[in-house]
């Protein structure tokens, strides 16, 4: 096996890790601030992909279609999240985690049926515009162009999340509420509205992940299952509620997956899970500090 093939495969793994990061950053943020393990986070990712498909198909022209899809699909998903949060979830924050898991699991089943009703059980796909097809090469390494774009998306989201949580008042409040929501209320802040916003941000990231992954995969029912399991594992190995932990976890996951494909293709899927087990045996609370 030659070195440049390995390096190219690593880059593909990294770009896949960026999708995992965007999705699990959202999951982790919601887990950290609201203390809600959101099982239907994966469904939101799937909806993001389907909505992206619909928008791209409606727009017709591929470049415009993709741009519109990536801009608007996450907003649609965020709106779905807002409705669920305001009507149902906001009344359940005081409940124990098992209740929250069961509730969000129920929402996952419902959203799954909604997707089936709206889009049917067929496979869908989005054709990337010509400019993003084919391979890009730099330093003698080949990488599909669209994956190169994904490589850039991860850092952009990481920086945006940092700016949101450290440079905006509401983001700072969200960090405070993650640790002591009662004290935040005593300061005259309506924590319920901060929670709604934090939840919507988390949902937006799930939708963004779905929209970004759409041109690289077949969009189908069931794509929610894999991602939600992966995202929960990533959040656990990274440290609950820690955005940088989500980044580290995603890189570990994506890279072990792609390297696994090279060294032992039949068992490639096992590698990230193996890495997870090793990390959790060594550090049961995750690699970085958990806010729990």
């Amino acid at each position, binding site marked *: 096996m030659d070195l440049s093939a390995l390096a190219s495969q690593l880059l593909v793994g990294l770009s896949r890790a960026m999708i995992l990061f965007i999705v699990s950053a959202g999951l982790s943020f919601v887990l950290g601030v609201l203390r809600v393990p959101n099982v239907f986070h994966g469904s939101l990712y799937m909806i993001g992909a389907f909505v992206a498909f619909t928008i791209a198909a409606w727009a017709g022209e591929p470049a415009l279609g993709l741009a519109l899809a990536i801009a608007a699909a996450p907003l649609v998903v965020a709106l779905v999240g807002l409705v669920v949060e305001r009507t149902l979830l906001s009344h359940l924050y005081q409940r124990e985690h098992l209740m929250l898991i069961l509730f969000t699991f129920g929402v996952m089943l419902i959203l799954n049926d909604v997707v089936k009703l709206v889009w049917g059980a067929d496979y869908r796909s989005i054709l990337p515009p010509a400019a993003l097809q084919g391979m890009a090469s730099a330093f003698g390494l080949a990488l599909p162009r669209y994956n190169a774009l994904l490589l850039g998306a991860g850092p952009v989201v990481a920086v945006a999340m940092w700016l949101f949580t450290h440079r905006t008042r509401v983001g700072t409040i969200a960090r405070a509420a993650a640790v002591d929501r*009662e004290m935040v209320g*005593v300061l005259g802040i309506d924590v319920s509205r901060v929670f709604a916003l934090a939840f919507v941000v988390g949902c937006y990231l799930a939708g963004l992940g779905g929209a970004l992954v759409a041109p690289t995969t077949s969009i189908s029912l069931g794509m929610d299952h894999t991602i939600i399991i992966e995202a929960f594992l990533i959040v656990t190995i990274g440290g609950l509620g820690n955005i940088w932990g989500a980044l580290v976890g995603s890189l570990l996951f994506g890279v072990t997956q792609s390297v696994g494909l090279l060294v032992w293709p039949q068992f490639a899927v096992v590698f990230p899970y193996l890495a997870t087990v090793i990390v959790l045996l060594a550090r049961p609370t995750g690699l970085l500090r958990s806010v729990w």
Partner: protein
Amino acid sequence: MLEVEGLHARYGQSHVLFDVSLRVERGEVVCLLGRNGAGKSTTLKSIIGVVPPAAGRVRFKGEDVTGREPFLLARLGIGYVPDDRRIFADLTVAENLDIAARPAAGGEGWTRERVFGLFPVLREKLGHKGGHLSGGEQKMLALARALVGNPELLLLDEPLEGLAPLLVRALAGQILRLKAAGLTVLLAEQNVGAALGVADRAYVIDDGRIRYHGTVADLKANDEVRRRYLLV
């Protein structure tokens, strides 16, 4: 300004406040004295609503506010400084203050700068994480955080506890300055000497019941009450 009438409070099955009544007039510093476990903290928590009253009434500025959520009470003008400070450890000093800031109803009020006048050490530690401050600095930050919210009534839970004698005197001085600036204060304390030094009137609570109230001068003269309810 604050009227509490027949307040009862419970934690689950255990009933800890019985028929507590007290009032605080605008501009007064009133202290609530009592031993460990007497019910001082619970009284303050019931007023600010984090332990919702099981029975009784709380009136603030003439309005019945019983059972309102803490954030609404804070917006009405009640500030609360818990005994365990509850500084946001991951946030810097500046962030702790910024999220708490709300403009005064009239006039300039308490700005960050004005609060630094009381606690200059906070200015030097603006960029430090709340969790990295010393205990005394955290107490100052907790008080500063309440002040920048520009409350009209301040509920202080044992602000002097655990401080070195020198700091106790300094902080008692600051409380007097707050009073001079027009703030109304309800002060829960075990440190009887220091509390009586700053207060106008005193309530004595024991076993969840108000046992005595009167002016500071009266309480100082009443050895019987001090011996029965305040000596450890």
